[in-house]
């Protein structure tokens, strides 16, 4: 049961379909395993529905109706939807993520950043955000950093702590700008997080700062 949830503004944008793909996928991956958030999103969608039904109708020509009626007998496309049973399958991984990863964690290409931190970028089709998995080895620490932009994090496996708390699978965090933290993986277990960034991390300690020019955002 997650104890850290997305802020209400993200849930609202999510319900309205206004979040960029990468961020929406991250909020989804949290909420699909979090009943209270799904309930809130449901109510937020009711607001969308009310607004939708209040719109001033714009006439649609009968030709459009005819086109639709003719196409009703076309066979329905087979939709690839393996996240169907996801609500019952958490943890370890929401079905959608499993599909994007196309394998499990060990089969991904991990790029080593420091001794205890590796990153694997996934493609979701978002031109402004990096959608990546961050892996911290057991007891390892991500060097202290802040963010040029914003960072959404969802703990998928293991756990970590920073100055503000301890985070376990399902927990959702949002950090931005000058919020500085140095996540430390919980002893005894490594930690894997899903992270959505709109600007690269910036290491803040002298010892690591030389790496900053190499920390590029890999959107896609």
């Amino acid at each position, binding site marked *: 049961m997650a104890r850290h949830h997305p802020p*209400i503004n993200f849930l609202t*944008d999510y319900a*309205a*379909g206004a979040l960029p793909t990468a961020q929406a996928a991250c909020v989804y991956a949290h909420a699909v395993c979090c009943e209270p958030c799904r309930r809130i999103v449901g109510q*937020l969608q009711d607001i969308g529905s009310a607004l939708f039904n209040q719109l001033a109708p714009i006439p649609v020509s009968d030709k459009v109706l005819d086109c639709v*009626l003719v196409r009703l007998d076309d066979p329905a496309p087979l939709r690839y939807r393996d996240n169907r049973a996801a609500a019952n399958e958490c943890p370890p991984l929401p079905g959608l993520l499993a599909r994007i990863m196309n394998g499990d964690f060990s089969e991904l290409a991990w790029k080593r950043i420091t001794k205890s931190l590796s990153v694997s970028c996934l493609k979701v089709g978002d031109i402004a955000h990096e959608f990546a998995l961050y892996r911290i080895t057991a007891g390892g620490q991500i060097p202290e950093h802040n963010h040029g932009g914003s960072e959404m994090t969802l703990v998928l496996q293991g756990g970590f702590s920073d100055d503000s708390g301890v985070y376990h699978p399902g927990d959702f965090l949002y950090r931005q700008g000058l919020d500085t933290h140095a996540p430390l993986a919980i002893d005894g277990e490594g930690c894997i997080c899903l992270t959505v960034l709109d600007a690269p991390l910036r290491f803040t300690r002298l010892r690591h700062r030389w790496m900053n020019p190499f920390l590029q955002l890999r959107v896609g």
Partner: protein
Amino acid sequence: MARLSIGCNFERLLYALRYDVWGVVMAKLSTIDAPVAAGSTSSLQQYAGRRTDEWSERLVLVGEQQDRAAFTQFFRHFAPLIKAFALSGSTMSAIHADELVQEVMIKVWQKASGFNPEKAAASTWVYTIARNCRTDMFRRLQKFETAIAAEDLEFDEAAEGPFSVLHSHRGAERIRELMADLPPDQAQILGKVYMEGKSHSEAAAELDLPLGTVKSRVRLAIQKLQVQFGTQ
């Protein structure tokens, strides 16, 4: 008990008179199972949760009987709303808006059998399809290659527990009443986010307001609309 059921039937009759023939058909159908529904607590609860508005009833007919007449009526009501939704605050051309109408209505036909009036009202169900199709169409028009369709980020309501209802029972109607009392600045921002599909930050940029102001207006608005959020 007898008086109660007469009262119910009378209400149904009135309802049927107010609406058209489909209302009558459904009223007849639902009188058949009414005594059963009154029998046990659990089916009573289900009964209370079941949407009986005219559009939900028509959608059930489309799903269960592939009823084209019901579908046509559904189209005549919702297509103009979908078109208005397509064109609100966007640069979408009228041709693309009509294309979106077609796409949404064909999805309505194909997915109607999965519609469950106990989980949501038809109007909310159509809105989410329209929203997803619009998101995907925007991406297509901007030539985004995306591995995720908007529909992939939809929760599967069928998998929710029997008494778990995500949408508020009072639903859109109650929200509409409350909405009438929203201050204009809050209503305006809700429109930007929901109907125009702008995120909080995009809405802030467009209205030339600080992000914090947009956030707090939306927050106040959804509080007034009685969305229950605790820790967020």
